[in-house]
């Protein structure tokens, strides 16, 4: 991958990450599910990562270059 393309990917990822943070409260309706975000849109929601990866494959999306987030179930907070 060329540096220019890499920078474009990183810029897109930064924007998606900001979008995710800004909309985190709204995303609580997906508690316990896994979501994939692309260009400020949720393009897939599934119960598990395995199901999400299958869904993305059907949609011809490369999961390696998508922002994928598991929304923790209600009343569970992770303290690392």
């Amino acid at each position: 991958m060329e540096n220019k393309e890499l920078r474009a990917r990183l810029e897109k990822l930064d924007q998606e990450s900001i979008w995710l943070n800004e909309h985190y409260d709204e995303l609580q309706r997906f508690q316990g599910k896994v979501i994939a975000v692309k260009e400020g849109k949720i393009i897939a929601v599934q119960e598990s990562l395995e199901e999400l990866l299958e869904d993305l494959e059907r949609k011809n999306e490369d999961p390696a270059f998508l922002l994928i987030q598991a929304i923790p179930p209600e009343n569970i907070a992770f303290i690392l």
Partner: protein
Amino acid sequence: MSFVARSPRFFGVVEALIDTGSPFTVLSTLDAMKMRLPIKSMRKGESVSLAGFRFFKHNVKNASFTFRTQGDESISFEVKDLGILVPTKIDKKTLRDVEPIPSIIGNDFLEDHNLALFFNPSQKITYLEEVRLDT
């Protein structure tokens, strides 16, 4: 913190947490799976406990992380020993339970590359800064 992670075995984007309390830098099970790493055959390595779950820290050599700088350049750093978090028990329930555990940039990465962390939670500003050491 977002970046592109790559090695001869994987290539993809990662959104990681910077954890100054972690001695290790690790890719989460979710990130490993989304980059199609065969985690079932990677159940070896040091055993670590994280968020109440036990994992093997499967080490990968020759990995690098590429970040975007404030000036819209890309900057890459080698990661000497990148751990992949592989649950000791791999079944549907465990995989679902560990999905929210993020990739982590640990102290090893910050120290190896002389990176300082600036964190201002009230203004939602976080960035890494390369510290030039005068010799």
